[in-house]
C-alpha cells in the first residue's frame, strides 16, 4: 500500500466470438496514460482533460507475462508492440501478435501477470495518502467486434472506454485495516498475518474497479433485491445518507423505466477530499460520488445529482455498453437526460438548487450549458474530435440531454419513455450504436422524431424561434364605395361594419435553424385572457393574425418551454407596449444601497 503498487496475476478466458480467425489481440493499458507527460493523455500542455490537472508523479502498468497453453511456454507479451499505433510516445493501445490464429468459436486461456503502479489521484484513478482507487488498473482486452476487428484506441483525455462483457472473479489482498469496495459481490474473506484477501465476483460486466482505504465508514441497506453498500469518510455521513435517500427513489424508478438493475450489489464510494478526482464515475456495480460536506446546507442537490447520474450509467454504459470513445453521447447524453427526469421527480422545479426564493432545475442548467455550445460541433462525433472537454461537456452531456428533453416535451413523455424502454430492453447486455438508438426512437415516436434526432445530433441541429414583430389596432371602420344588393355604387358601407368594436392584431414569427418542431403561441390580450395557437413549425416564417373584442397585448412563443433547445428564450416574446421592469430596479437599488451602506463606512 505504501508503494501504491498492485502486483496481479490471473487468467483471461477468451472466446473468439467473431466470424474471423484472430492473428493478434489488442489490449488497452489505460494506466499508461499516466506513464509520462508525453502520453496522448498528458501531452497537451493546455490540460484539456476532464480535471484539467497535471501530474507531479507518474504511474504505469507493465505486463510481465502473457502465456497460453495453446502456444506452449512462450511469453507472448515479448512480441507485443512497444507503443500505440503511430504514436511512439503512447503505450495505452497495444497489440500482441499470436503465433497461431484463434479460430472463430475457439476459446483460449491466457495467463497474465502484471504490475500496476498508481499515480497520485488524477482523472479517476490513483492514490491520495492511504486512499487508493484502482480504476482501469489491469490490461483490458479491446472489444472484439463481430467482424473480427478489435475496437481499439489510444487513451485520449476526452475519451472513456469500450469493452466486451465478461465474468470477473477477483481476489484482492490488502492490510486488514483497509476496507475494500469493489464492483461485484463480496464472496469470502480470509485474513492471514494482517493481510485480508477478499474475493469479489461480477458477472456480465465490462469493467472492474476497486478502492481501498483505512478511513472508510460502511453503511449497507437493501433496496429491493439490491444490497447497496456505501463507503464514505465518517464526516460524510450526512452526504452518504443523502446519496442513500436518492438511491431509494432512483433505483426502483430506473428499474421501472429501463429494466432491472442487473447485479446483486451496488457499491457507492464517496472519496475523501484529497481523492475527490475519483468521484463522479461509473463502473459496473460500483459508482463514485462526491461533493463538499457543507453543500447540502446551501440548498444544492449536487450530491444527489451526481449519485443519480452515476447510478443511471448502470444502464446507459453498464447494460447498454456503447462505444464511449466513438459516440460518447450515447451514454453521457442519455444518462444526463434520465438524470433530469429522476431529479425532477425527486425535487421538482428546484432539482439542482432550491433556496432564497429561487428554484433552479437540472434541466435548466443543461439547457443553458447547451446553448453556449450550440452549433459549434457535432454532438455525434468521437470524443477525441471535440476541441476541448468543455465543448464535449456542453454538447455530449448537456445538449444531448436538452435534445431528448425537447423530444419528450414535444412528442410526449410517455411515448419517449416507451421508446427508451424498448431500446433498453432490446440492447440489454449489448453494444448499441447511434443508428440503433435512433431506430428505436423512430419506431416509438415516428419518422419525424428520427429525422429530428439525426439533424440535432449529427448536423449541428439548431433552432431559434423569434417573434419578429407585433402590432395591434382597432379594426378600421369601413370606408370607400360599396355595392350592396344593388347595381349602383353607394358610399354607405354595410350596416354591420359602420362602427368597430373589434381589435386586430398581428405577430410575425420566424424560425431560424435547421430543426423543425411544432410549437404553441400564446396571444395575451389586454383583458387578461390568453388565446393559444398550435403551429406545425414547418414554415420558416409566418404571420399570426388575431381579431377579437380585446386588444392584443403580447405574444409568446412556446410558453410552456416545450422546446428547451430554442437558442434564445428572450426573443420568444414581444409586447405591444413592453412592461417596465420596476421590480428589478427596486431590487438592484436596494442591494446597491445596502451594500453601499456597508461600503461607505
Amino acid at each position: 500500500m505504501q508503494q501504491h503498487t498492485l502486483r496481479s496475476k490471473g487468467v483471461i478466458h477468451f472466446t473468439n466470438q467473431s466470424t474471423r480467425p484472430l492473428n493478434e489481440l489488442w489490449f488497452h493499458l489505460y494506466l499508461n496514460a499516466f506513464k509520462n507527460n508525453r502520453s496522448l493523455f498528458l501531452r497537451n500542455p493546455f490540460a484539456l482533460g476532464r480535471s484539467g490537472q497535471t501530474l507531479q508523479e507518474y504511474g504505469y502498468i507493465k505486463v510481465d507475462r502473457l502465456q497460453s497453453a495453446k502456444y506452449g511456454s512462450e511469453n507472448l507479451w515479448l512480441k507485443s508492440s512497444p507503443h500505440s499505433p503511430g504514436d511512439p510516445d503512447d503505450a495505452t493501445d497495444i497489440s500482441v501478435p499470436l503465433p497461431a490464429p484463434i479460430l472463430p468459436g475457439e476459446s483460449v486461456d491466457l495467463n497474465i501477470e502484471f504490475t500496476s503502479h498508481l499515480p497520485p489521484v488524477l482523472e479517476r484513478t490513483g492514490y491520495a495518502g492511504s486512499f487508493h482507487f484502482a480504476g482501469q488498473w489491469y490490461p483490458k482486452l479491446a472489444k472484439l467486434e463481430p467482424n473480427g476487428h478489435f475496437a481499439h484506441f489510444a487513451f485520449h483525455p476526452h475519451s472513456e472506454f469500450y469493452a466486451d462483457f465478461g465474468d470477473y472473479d477477483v481476489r484482492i489482498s490488502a492490510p486488514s485495516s483497509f476496507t475494500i469496495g469493489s464492483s461485484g459481490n463480496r464472496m469470502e474473506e480470509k485474513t492471514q498475518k494482517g493481510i485480508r484477501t477478499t474475493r469479489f465476483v461480477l458477472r456480465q460486466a465490462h469493467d472492474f474497479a476497486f478502492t481501498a482505504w483505512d478511513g472508510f465508514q460502511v453503511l449497507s441497506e437493501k433496496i429491493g433485491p439490491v444490497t447497496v453498500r456505501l463507503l464514505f469518510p465518517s464526516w460524510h455521513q450526512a452526504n452518504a445518507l443523502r446519496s442513500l435517500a436518492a438511491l431509494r427513489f432512483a433505483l426502483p424508478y430506473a428499474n421501472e423505466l429501463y429494466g432491472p438493475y442487473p447485479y446483486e450489489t451496488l457499491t457507492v464510494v464517496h472519496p475523501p477530499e484529497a481523492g475527490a478526482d475519483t468521484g463522479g464515475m461509473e463502473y459496473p456495480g460500483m459508482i463514485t460520488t462526491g461533493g463538499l460536506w457543507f453543500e447540502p446546507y446551501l440548498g444544492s442537490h449536487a450530491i444527489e445529482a451526481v449519485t443519480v447520474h452515476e447510478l443511471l450509467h448502470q444502464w446507459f454504459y453498464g447494460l447498454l455498453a456503447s462505444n464511449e470513445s466513438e459516440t460518447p453521447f450515447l451514454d453521457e447524453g442519455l444518462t444526463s437526460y434520465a438524470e433530469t427526469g429522476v431529479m425532477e421527480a425527486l425535487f421538482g422545479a428546484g432539482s439542482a438548487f432550491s433556496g432564497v426564493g429561487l428554484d433552479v432545475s437540472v434541466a435548466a442548467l443543461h439547457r443553458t450549458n447547451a446553448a453556449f455550445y450550440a452549433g459549434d460541433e457535432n454532438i455525434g462525433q468521437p470524443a477525441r474530435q471535440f476541441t476541448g472537454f468543455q465543448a464535449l461537456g456542453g454538447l455530449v452531456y448537456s445538449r444531448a440531454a436538452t435534445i431528448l428533453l425537447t423530444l419528450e416535451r414535444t412528442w410526449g413523455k410517455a411515448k419517449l419513455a416507451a421508446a427508451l424502454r424498448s431500446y433498453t430492453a432490446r440492447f440489454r447486455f449489448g453494444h448499441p450504436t447511434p443508428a440503433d438508438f435512433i431506430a428505436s426512437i423512430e419506431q416509438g415516436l415516428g419518422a419525424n422524431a428520427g429525422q429530428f434526432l439525426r439533424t440535432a445530433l449529427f448536423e449541428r441541429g439548431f433552432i431559434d424561434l423569434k417573434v419578429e414583430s407585433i402590432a395591434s389596432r382597432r379594426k378600421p371602420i369601413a370606408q370607400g364605395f360599396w355595392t350592396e344588393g344593388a347595381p349602383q355604387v353607394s358610399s354607405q358601407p354595410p350596416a354591420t361594419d359602420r362602427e368597430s368594436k373589434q381589435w386586430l392584431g398581428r405577430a410575425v414569427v420566424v424560425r431560424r435553424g435547421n430543426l423543425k418542431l411544432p410549437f404553441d403561441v400564446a396571444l395575451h390580450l389586454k383583458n387578461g385572457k390568453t388565446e393559444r395557437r398550435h403551429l406545425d413549425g414547418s414554415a420558416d416564417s409566418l404571420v399570426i393574425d388575431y381579431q377579437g373584442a380585446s386588444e392584443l397585448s403580447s405574444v409568446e412563443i412556446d410558453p410552456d418551454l416545450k422546446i428547451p433547445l430554442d437558442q434564445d428564450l428572450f426573443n420568444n416574446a414581444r409586447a405591444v407596449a413592453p412592461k417596465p421592469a420596476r421590480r428589478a430596479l427596486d431590487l438592484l437599488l436596494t442591494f446597491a444601497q445596502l451594500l453601499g451602506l456597508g461600503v461607505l463606512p
Partner: protein
Amino acid sequence: MTRAARSAVAVFGFWILSLVAGLLLSLPWFSGIEAQGVGGFADGELVLMRQGGAYLLEMLRLGSAQFQSLLLPTLALGLVTTFIGLIPIAGLIVAVVSETGGSRSMFSRACGHWFEFSVLRMITFLIQGAVVLTAWLLAQRPAPLGWDIRQANGLSLAVFAVAGCLLAVVGCLQDLVRVLLVERSGALSIPRLIRAGWHMVRTESLKLLAIWSALAGAALLIAGLIGAGSLAWVRDHTFATWCVQQLLFVGLILLKLLWFSSLAAAVARERYTRSV
C-alpha cells in the same frame, strides 16, 4: 439647532446620497436586464422567476458579456461614491459630537474632515485588502494529500471566518478613529485609541453593532425575497414596497448614528478617565 435636529439633517443627507449612489450603481445593471427583453413577456420581469430558473439562467447567459463589461465601471463608481460618502458619514459624527451649530456649519465641518477621512479610508482599504488577499491565498492552497475533506474545508472556512472578524475589527477601529478625529479633545495616538477601544468594548457599542448587522442581514433577505417574487402581495405594489424598503434603510442609518453616538460616549469616557 438642537442635536436632534442636526442628527435628522445628517440622516437625511446620508439617505439622499445613498439613494443617488444606489441609482447610479444600479441603473446600468437594470438597463442590462431590460435590454434582454423581459418586458415583452406577459408577466414582465417575473419571467425570470418562472419555475426551474431557465429564464434567469438565460438572462445571465445572454447578458454575460454586458454584465461583465459593467463590473469594472461599477467598481470604479463604487469607489468614487465610497469617498464622496465620507462627507455624510462625517456629518453623522459631527451631528452627535458637536454641542452647537446649524446644518450649514455641520456640512462645512463634515467637508473639512473629508481629506483625513479619505486618507484613513485608504489605509483601512489597504489593511482590509491585505487581509482579504491573505485569506484568499491561504484558502487557495491545495489540501495536503491525506487530508480529509472536513479538514480542508474547515480550514478554508476558518480562514474566511478569521478574515471576516479581522475586517470587522478594522472597520470598527476606523469608526473609532473617525470619532476621535472629529471630537479633537486631544492628540490622536495609539494608546488613546486602545483606551477608547477598551471603553467601546465595555459599553453597549458592540451590542449595537450586532443589532445593526442583524438588521442589515434581514433587510438583504427581505430585499432578496421581494426581488425573487416570493412575497406575492408586494408584486404589484412596487412603489409601496420601495417605500417600506427605504424606511427600513433609514432605520439602519439611524442605528449607524446610534453607533457613532456610542463611540463618542466611549471617547468621552476615555477623556474623562484620562483627566482624572
